């Protein structure tokens, strides 16, 4: 059975003068899947999303959503979409319940307010004024607003930035639930773990372009059978690092983290251990891992996702 595609973007362009914020971006998002745009700050993720949300006008390219080509994202489309903006505020003097009610009134169809409050765990805070909420609570409120019309397509722009780990995990499980209930999710993030854990499909963006895309597994598989051996390199002198490099090669060191990339795990471990014995270096916090999306990005651009 042919997969149905909720959103198909082709050669999307948005230039601001000489700045090419979005420079020919294409992707398609199957229904009931999670699609992630991954990339560093300034890659053009939010601009892309805002075009799809209808608050920026595209400079070129085509958008096909809910099976139809659209020249603009009109009211009919917005009725079926839910949006979590990266930046945005609520009226400080409204109560949580009133905010949900306000946004619910904009849609022809909306869920009961209590249901939305329960969904985002804000029921006890329903009478609290927005200005008394913490950052995490505001984010939950924003998510509630994004879901108030029970949308088919949900945009989540940087949904976990600034949240503590517990809140982040709560958001991840919400995203899974949404997908399981048949919704299509498009999310942007610069957190690699988020992309890996949640996504069915990832497009990595940099400087306004998609530089690679695929499932997380496909992307890391592109790095081959590489293994990474890492340990805490605090206190090592440049001389010691140079000798390690000479012995083992393919070594990087920054932020006190020394990492060796190797296709031959056993051999590399051997050389590492003998070097450590000779140099008298204790191998602290040594870890061995498979390649991740961060490594993919690094290999393609030479830069890290997080500056």
């Amino acid at each position, binding site marked *: 059975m042919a997969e149905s595609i909720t959103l198909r973007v082709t050669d999307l362009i948005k230039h601001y003068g000489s700045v090419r914020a979005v420079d020919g971006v294409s992707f398609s998002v199957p229904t009931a899947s999670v699609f992630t745009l991954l990339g560093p700050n300034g890659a053009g993720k939010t601009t892309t999303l805002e075009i799809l949300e*209808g608050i*920026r006008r595209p400079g070129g390219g085509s958008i096909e959503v809910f099976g139809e080509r659209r020249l603009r994202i009109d009211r009919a489309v917005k009725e079926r979409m839910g949006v979590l903006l990266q930046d945005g*505020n609520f*009226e400080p003097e409204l109560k949580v319940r009133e905010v949900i009610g*306000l946004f619910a*009134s904009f849609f022809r169809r909306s869920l009961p307010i209590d249901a939305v409050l329960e969904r985002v765990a804000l029921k006890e805070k329903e009478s609290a004024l927005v200005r008394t909420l913490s950052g995490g609570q505001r984010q939950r409120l924003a998510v509630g607003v994004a879901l108030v019309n029970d949308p088919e397509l949900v945009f989540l722009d940087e949904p976990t930035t600034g949240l503590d780990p517990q809140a982040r995990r709560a958001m991840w499980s919400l995203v899974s639930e949404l997908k399981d209930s048949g919704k299509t999710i498009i999310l942007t993030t610069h957190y690699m773990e988020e992309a890996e854990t949640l996504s069915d499909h990832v497009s990595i963006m940099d400087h306004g372009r998609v530089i690679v895309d695929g499932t997380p597994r496909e992307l890391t598989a592109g790095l081959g059978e590489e293994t990474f051996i890492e340990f805490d390199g605090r206190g090592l002198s440049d001389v010691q690092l140079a000798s390690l490099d000479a012995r083992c090669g393919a070594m990087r060191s920054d932020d006190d983290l020394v990492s060796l990339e190797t296709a031959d795990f056993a051999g590399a471990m051997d050389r590492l251990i003998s070097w450590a014995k000779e140099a008298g270096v204790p191998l602290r916090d040594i870890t061995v891992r498979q390649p991740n999306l961060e490594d993919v990005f690094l290999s393609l651009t030479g830069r890290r996702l997080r500056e």
Partner: protein
Amino acid sequence: MSGITAVARTYLVTNLRERITLFWFLVFPLFLLTILTLIFGGLGSDLETTFAVGLVNSARANGGPTDFSSMVERAFVHLSSSDSPDRRPLFRLHRPADGEDPRAFLDREKDAVRIGDRALLIEIPAGFNEALLASVGGAGPPAAIAISVSGGRISSEIARSIADQVIAGVNERILTVVGRFDPSQALTVESARVGSNGRDFLYVDFLLPGVVLMAFFTAGLFGVPGTILFGRERKILKRYWVTPLETRRFLAGFSLGHLALCATQFVALYLLGRFAFGARVALLSPLSLAFLALAASVFLAFGFLISSLARTANAAMAIANILNLPMMFLGGLFFPIGELPAILRAVMLANPVTYLADGLRTALGVTTPMVPCAATIAVPVAWAVVCVVVAARRLQWGAEQ
């Protein structure tokens, strides 16, 4: 609740919950109404002030029948006692101490008047009785009472006019005593109020429409640009544009909410003016309500204009602050406008507030019209149309539409 009413409700509720807007849009007009009514409402009625007055009779003889100076003195002394416990005496007299040199007293008291410790110094000079007799006989000018006032002090002014009244009474009494004046033939003096069925208007009847207009004006001038521009800058509005709510529905809700705010202001001020201060002016008549609705709408449009002209919220607030007081005062909201220099008269005639205030007050019968009746509707409507046209083209809502 539909989107439009929800937006309207939000506008009203947030303005009433935020302390700053609650104060300036609601509390301050109520306060202003109270203060101005208390200050000016008592004008012309019994003063509650007692003036400190120095009094010396340098002409006192032995209190015999020809000692008119004592009569004058008693008339002033009478002012320093009060008939009833609630009414305060008008004067508090300071007299020379027993055996004090009158010259020294005069010098001391004049200095006291100079620095404001006394409102007035009254001296019945030596030779007063003789001068009086001469004047009665037709052989001389009126006998003069010397009064010293402090230049520039209102209290001196008022006390002096009280003294003048006393002297007028003294004239009549003395002439009666010497048999020249026949009190039974005294002039009958009446006074009557003309205009508006001769009903006596209180200052609050003049003021209340003005304060209501002021409240509408401040809400339109500050509230509208504030909400729109701060909403745009803080990205509160941005959250609306990703929903199916179109800007024109938002605008409708916003306007509705603003008019609801104005209605709240009106109700509060009306209740205060009517039940606390006894205002009788017919603000609930259809014509008056129509004018008020017009005013609220014109100021709403004006607010949109400011929102479209200023680039940032702070700039809008600065513009609003600069326009605020001149437009209110030169629109005749608080004081009737007298003769103005040409420039200011031009401002006054360009100001929509002038026409709205004049139209409203004339409709209520508390003032003589200053501008032609048709103008009181035409000019504000024209203003509103211009504002809306300009704003429609220039106003940015924060999303590329």
